Structure formats: structure tokens, C-alpha cells
């Protein structure tokens, strides 16, 4: 029998890998991947707990909503990344350091 603890440990490790990617990488696309990993860790928790809620299905439902939200966020973030690339010719977030055009 797989317990809730196992799922939570997997999601904790996944979250920390995502955190590492976000802090250490120098490329906006890789940072976006790190954010997606952290989101997925949260969704895994929702799904694992949602197993014990058959009547209301809260966990699985909000996992679905979170997946859709992640898709919307990614689309907007990638559009912003493309604009930043057009403006600065780089997607290293450390080099994007001025607000004016």
C-alpha cells in the first residue's frame, strides 16, 4: 500500500529540485521549467490527498484547475520572454536590468 507520506516525500524532493533550478540557472526558459516543477509538486500533493475525498472531489478538481492555470501562465511568460529577447538580445535575467526602452 502506498501511503500519503510517500507521495509527500516525492513532492518535497521535486519542489526542492525546482527551487534549485530557479536560483541557479541563468536562462529564463530553464527558470520557467523550474517553476513548472514546483507547480507540479503542489499538484501531486493535491492529487494524493484528493484520493480521500470521493464525494466532493476537491483535490482532483483543483489539480485540474491548477494545470490549466499553469498552461495560461506559461503562455504569457513565454510571450514576455520573446519580447525580452527582442529588446535585449539575451534571455539571461541577470542582464535584463533597465526599465526604460
Amino acid at each position, binding site marked *: *500500500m*502506498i501511503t*500519503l*507520506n*510517500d*507521495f509527500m*516525500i*516525492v513532492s*518535497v*524532493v*521535486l*519542489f*526542492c*529540485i525546482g*527551487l*534549485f*533550478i530557479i*536560483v*541557479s540557472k*541563468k*536562462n529564463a*526558459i*530553464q527558470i520557467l*521549467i523550474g517553476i*513548472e*516543477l514546483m507547480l*507540479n509538486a503542489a*499538484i*501531486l500533493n493535491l*492529487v*494524493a490527498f*484528493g*484520493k*480521500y*475525498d*470521493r*464525494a466532493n*472531489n476537491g483535490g*482532483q*478538481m483543483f*489539480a*485540474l*484547475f491548477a*494545470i*490549466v492555470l*499553469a*498552461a*495560461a501562465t*506559461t*503562455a*504569457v511568460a*513565454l*510571450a514576455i*520572454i*520573446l*519580447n525580452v*529577447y527582442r529588446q535585449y*538580445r*539575451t*534571455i539571461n535575467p541577470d542582464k535584463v536590468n533597465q526599465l526604460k526602452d
Partner: protein
Amino acid sequence: MNLVQILFYIMAFITLGSALVVAISGNLVRSIFMFFVTLFGLAGLYVLALADFVAVTQIVIYVGGILVLILFAFMLSGKEALATAQQQTNRFISLSNAPAFLLAALFLVVMLNVVFKADVNNLPWVKVAIETKNVVPVDGTGINDIGVNLMTRYLLPFEVISVLLMIALVGAAHLSRKEAIRT
């Protein structure tokens, strides 16, 4: 040690291993494709948590949508992105990565502590759910509940998220449009 448990460990190993490769590899293309493997492993974990509909949605939306978007953004942002990704040949524990590694490791310790202290297997509401047979059934009829709940209890969030998705699509299309005349 039954089959489900073995499958769980295989899936967890695939997920975490490929996520680690994403973190370690300096090559952007390789990390994108390993992210793909991570998403498939996660879908397998969702199936093992008896959420097959969420697993299929994960594959359709993440693999079919987000990953293709990321690949497009990577290709549209040109060779330069690839060049910076190549020259940044960072080892896992190089000096520049030390703060990030330390932060992630400390966070891992804290959160593992929280998980073990919380003792989630013996939460009161989980026990009540097991007693009253409020657990998602294994025979795949749980998807009926999802359909009914989506159209009754969660109708408002469902509609709100559809409007939000529409706004995000229009916004993304507007943002990524080429600006002909700058005002």
C-alpha cells in the same frame, strides 16, 4: 511489496531522476526533453493516486501544450540562447551554484521534517474518509464523480477559469505580436 508499490518506486525514481538531470545538465535542449520525461513520470504517479483523468489532462496539456510552447520559445529566441546555455558548463556543485544548492538542501531538510512531523497518514479526516468509504474507487468509476462535480459544485470556478484562459490567450497573442510602429 506488491506490484503497485514497485510501480510507485519506479515512477518516483523516473520522475526525480529526470528532474535531477534537468537541474544538472547545462544543455538547454537536453533539459527540456528531460522535463518531458519528468511530466510523464508525474502522470504515472497521478494514476497510482487513482486520478486517471488528471493524469490524462496532465499529458494532454503539459506535454502537448506547454512543452511545445517552450520548444517554440527556445527556437524563436535564436542561437544566442543556445550559445549561452552551452558556455555555462556548470558542474552540480560549482562555486557559483553553492548558494543555490545550500538553499535547496536546507529547504529540503525543513520540509522533510515537516512531512514527518505532520504524520499525514493519521490525519483525522483521512481516517473518517476511510471509515465512511469516501475513498476514490479503484474500478475507474471515480471519473463519474468528476463529471458531476464539475457541472454542479465547481461550476463557478470552471467558468471563471475558462474566461481567464481566454484572457491569457488574447494577452499572450498581443504580447508576442511584432510591433510595426512604435509610439
